[in-house]
């Protein structure tokens, strides 16, 4: 067990539809602990467990928590949160921490996508979330994984081996699934189909809004599928910035909000 030597830490909790993420930071804005778990059906319990894991990693006791800010779909279910902020605000703050200049952030989450535009001073200029449907989100890949009988974690490697990507034309997840079945029936290689799925995710996201010169990608889908980022770079014709822990950006942003609030107080 790590030595408990932290006097004051700030906690950010991002309870997403798919995963719960916790970031523990020092007042000097150093990320010292983090954890990710499936959100499951009891958001409060999951957030508690994630906190325990992240505090252990940080070497901090719960009593050292100066402020805890929650964000994400289940932000109102976190028992130890002092305040809540939206995931839009937290992703913006988290990304600006790593890339302190004007950017467009593409966050691909389990249930929704976000496009957030920040100015040079880190202030948000605009944001958009995907519409009601799950096309282009992590849920789309989660839906396709059992249909192809391919575990989610194997998708990235398979897509990178594709030599002849399958083009999927449909906007809708259900219709895309039908297209996938049609391609299986025609004997297309599974890696080519998966690359087509990745391309579909990218297409759904980039058509949400115009992108500024510098683009950052975050979220669980990005964290687990580096090849998807490479494809996105090819699609937009420039390199994409990815923070060290792309899945934790919202949680980091929430912790940073806490540090900011404590400074004001």
């Amino acid at each position, binding site marked *: 067990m790590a030595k408990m030597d932290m006097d004051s830490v700030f906690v950010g909790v991002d309870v997403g539809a798919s995963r719960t993420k916790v970031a523990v930071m020092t007042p000097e804005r150093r990320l010292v602990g983090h954890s990710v778990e499936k959100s499951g059906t009891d958001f409060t319990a999951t957030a508690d467990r994630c906190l325990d894991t992240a505090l252990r990693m940080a070497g901090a006791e719960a009593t050292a928590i100066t402020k805890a800010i929650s964000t994400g779909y289940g932000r109102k279910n976190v028992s130890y949160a002092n305040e809540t902020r939206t*995931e*839009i*605000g937290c992703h913006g703050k988290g990304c600006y921490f790593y890339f302190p200049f004007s950017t467009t952030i593409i966050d691909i989450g389990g249930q929704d996508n976000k496009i957030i535009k920040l100015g040079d001073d880190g*202030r948000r200029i605009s944001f958009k979330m995907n519409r009601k449907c799950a096309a282009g989100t992590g849920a789309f890949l989660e839906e396709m994984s059992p249909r192809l009988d391919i575990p989610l974690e194997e998708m990235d490697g398979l897509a990178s081996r594709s030599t002849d990507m399958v083009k999927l034309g449909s906007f809708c997840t259900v219709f895309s699934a039908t297209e996938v079945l049609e391609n299986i029936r025609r004997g297309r290689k599974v890696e080519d189909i998966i690359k087509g799925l990745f391309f579909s995710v990218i297409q759904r996201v980039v058509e949400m809004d115009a992108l500024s010169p510098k683009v950052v990608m975050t979220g669980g889908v990005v964290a687990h599928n580096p090849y998807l980022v490479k494809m996105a770079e090819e699609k937009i014709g420039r390199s994409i910035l990815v923070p060290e822990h792309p899945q934790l950006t919202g949680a980091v942003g929430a912790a940073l909000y806490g540090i900011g609030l404590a400074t004001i107080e």
Partner: protein
Amino acid sequence: MAKEKKVVRKKIKATGEMNRIMAEYFYELDNASKTGERKIAWCTSVGPAEILRSLGFLVHFPENHGAMLGATRMATDMIPEANALGYSPDICSYLTADVGAYVKGISPLTRAYKGIDGVPKPDVLVYNTNQCRDVQDWFAWYAKELNVPIMGVETHRGVGDVTGAHVESVASQMEALVPPLEEISGNTFDLEELKRVVALSKQCSDLWKQVLDTASNVPSPLTFYDGTIHMGPAVVLRGTQQAVDYYHLLLAEMNERIAQGEGAVEDESYRLYWEGMPIWGRLSAHSKLFSSLNTCVLASTYCNSWIFSAFDPDDPFRSMAKAYTELFIVRSDPAKERYVKTMLDFFKVDGVIYHDAKTCPNNSNCRYGMPQRIEEMTTLPFLTINGDLNDLRMISDEQTKTNIEAFVEQLEERKN
């Protein structure tokens, strides 16, 4: 756990009087429907109601009924009935909810008003396509179902400046309605009576405008959500003395609030403009949400759409034609953008919310780049909410909430 702020919404005292005159209106229609003592016309909400009243018709507005189905959250269960008859889930959910409710033999009127069995039976159906083509299809369905005559006005669309030619064309269509309506009503058209009705409509419209304009005060004494409820008399009772009397009362209350520095939203910090249809089934939820964020959605194109400044009793047909063609919904995008810009300045707002209503493309003004153009003109930020006027299946509440909260956070960042 972060505590949710408890929201207390301020009640408008005049609401009781509004409920009374609305009840009177519905009972009068119901009585006529049951006894046949008076003829009943169904009319679109921005149709030639003044002509109908001048000929002695009582007027029922199916759009009002559609909105009631939405506000009572009954609509979503009715819509599939109409879908099964061949009316797509993608078309006007007022139409599908109203037709579905008829098929199921259900009406919110029976729940709200004891003794009323349903919508009143029409003797004639009169539309104006200025709202959209769907109203015509809607009325056509009833014309066939109930074997009732249908007639109407085919309006111009994408109108830039309203010209004499537009006015003549619509005015002559309105005049052409008179002979068949005389026959159905059994009454002879009386120009003086039409002038009297138009004068009352004009008074109603002017007072309604004054009520809505009070929202330019900081803090605003009323919200958009109040407006969607209190516009009832301006829609269904314009052309009557009751509507005029009611808006005198409501205006006095709003002015009293202003005099006392009383805002509709406690500690109003942000002021927003709503562009597009209301989400009827979420009026209360959204009103509470915005209040909890100290944000007042205080003005809208929608509530302003029952202001008819051009009405002139001395020239009733031409002035009605002008008023019903000046309507925002039939105008070109440049004309709409000029209008919205004027409203944003007048009401001193911090941002705009566009409602992209799935089943109402005609009144979703965010699909051809308008929000971006208006943002460029005004530098005011905007948010687009995906939803629907009536079909709650088209709404993601959690996503709407996150979007709204994030938008208010953005406004906060801009102010700091």
